[in-house]
């Protein structure tokens, strides 16, 4: 995306410096450094188990880092109190790999839940308007009364995105948005991610190992290998890298 050359001069909306994370004896992230700028879609590419999901879970305070400075919207995440962290989380939307829709609630209740729990004085009319607006944005207005178990994988992802959009986030974190979906649904989700970026003016981190998703949705791509970012840049720059590991990752994906 052309605007990248100009936005990199601005203050980053997400800034990660010297991040380390390990689980027991397993070192997952080693000296991670990354800046994401306002309005930018950053794709984090990497193999399964390389720590991509861990990275975005650290950004919302779901996991604590071992070491490093993580700043999101100007807040140092691991130094926030519970209330401050909640206030920050309201400004971040998180789409889980499994969509994580609440099984015991229908689509409408899934969407209403974050609103009613966080905005005490909201009226029924305002809730209805917000629900209809986000369902319209993801193109699933007719599924309002259905249970999550009645939805397809792609529809669940869309409702998951709608549930995050209802709180009007400034940042979107997508964890494998196209995992387990057929190519046509993948394309729809990729388009939706771009539409969300434009309509809601969000900055995003998209975790994936799907190269088509990376190419379509990403303004920049960061290649995570062996717990480190080995290359950060536009898709073509990373794609044309001389690094053997990057080459083999891309070649393998295209063969697949």
């Amino acid at each position, binding site marked *: 995306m052309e605007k990248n050359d100009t936005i990199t001069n601005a203050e980053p909306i997400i800034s990660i410096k010297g991040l*380390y994370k*390990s689980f*027991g*004896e*397993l*070192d997952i992230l*080693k*000296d991670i450094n990354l800046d994401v700028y306002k309005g930018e879609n950053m794709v984090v590419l990497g193999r399964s188990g390389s720590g991509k999901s861990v990275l975005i*879970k650290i950004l*919302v305070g*779901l996991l604590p880092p*071992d*070491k490093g400075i993580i700043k999101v919207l100007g807040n140092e995440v691991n130094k926030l109190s519970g209330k401050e962290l*909640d*206030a920050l*989380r*309201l400004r*971040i939307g*998180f789409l*889980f*790999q*499994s969509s*994580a*829709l*609440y*099984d*015991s609630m229908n689509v409408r209740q899934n969407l209403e*839940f*974050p609103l009613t*729990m*966080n905005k005490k004085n909201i009226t029924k009319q305002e809730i209805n308007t917000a629900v209809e607006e986000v369902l319209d944005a993801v193109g699933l207005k007719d599924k309002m009364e259905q249970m999550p178990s009645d939805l397809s994988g792609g529809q669940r992802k869309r409702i998951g995105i709608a*549930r995050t959009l209802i*709180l009007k986030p400034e940042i979107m974190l997508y964890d494998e948005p196209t995992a387990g979906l057929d190519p046509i649904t993948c394309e729809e989700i990729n388009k939706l991610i771009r539409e969300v970026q434009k309509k809601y003016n969000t900055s995003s981190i998209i975790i994936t190992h799907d190269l088509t998703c990376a190419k379509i949705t990403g303004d920049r791509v960061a290649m995570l290998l062996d717990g480190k970012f080995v290359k950060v840049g536009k898709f073509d720059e990373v794609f044309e890298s001389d690094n053997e590991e990057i080459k083999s990752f891309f070649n393998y994906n295209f063969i697949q």
Partner: protein
Amino acid sequence: MINSRPRKYLFTKGLDQYFTDVYKAYKFVIRFFKEAFHPPFHLREIINQCYEIGVKSLPLITLTGFITGIVFTKQSRPSLSEFGATSWLPSLISIAIVRALGALVTALICAGKVGSSIGAELGSMKVTEQIEAMEVSAINPFKYLVTTRVLACTITIPILGLYCGFVALMGSYFSVYTNESTSIVSFFHNGFSTITFLDVFSSVIKSIVFGFTIGIIGCYKGYNAVHGTLGVGRAANQAVVLAMFLVFIEEVTIVQIANWIRYY
């Protein structure tokens, strides 16, 4: 730079794990008390859980209580009739039901039905990232899921225990009535003449403790479920087994305390 390091144990791997689990459970219980007395209280969810736990358990409690009353009466009658003491039957049955059976039978049924259901529900929410989804939406999942369920168990299980006792006495009366034409007033008058305030009070206290135990164990096991669907089944199973085990331990302890108060 963080490198791979050999894991060091304070005692052995198993003992370390045991003490870690006990400490985690202790922290879980302490967190419950902290969260339970601070707003928001999610009253609607507590009422909803009371309905799920209480009202939906009524048919099973009714059937089990009634059968317990009948069976206990039928089993006691021959022994008492050997001594010509069948007139003591209502008193004996009332003491057994009010002091022990009502609360205990209810607790065991609820440990199976409610404990496993809470363990499985929270376990599946944990492994499908629904609990994390609440956290990232700035919703406190512990307060919304755990506190409400434990409070609902603590409120409804004593009520179910009293109801079970009443139904069991009705079952007992039914059994007595099929053998001799005793009036219901006479049966209950005879039965309650030996019941003291301490009997009812200790039974209610016991039920409250049982309710809390079933709720907190179910929530603890579900909330800490790991390893996917296997973990969900394991959480439900462990919730039942551990809750039943603790219910028996608590029964023995509270009976000892009640007897100590009664006789000293």
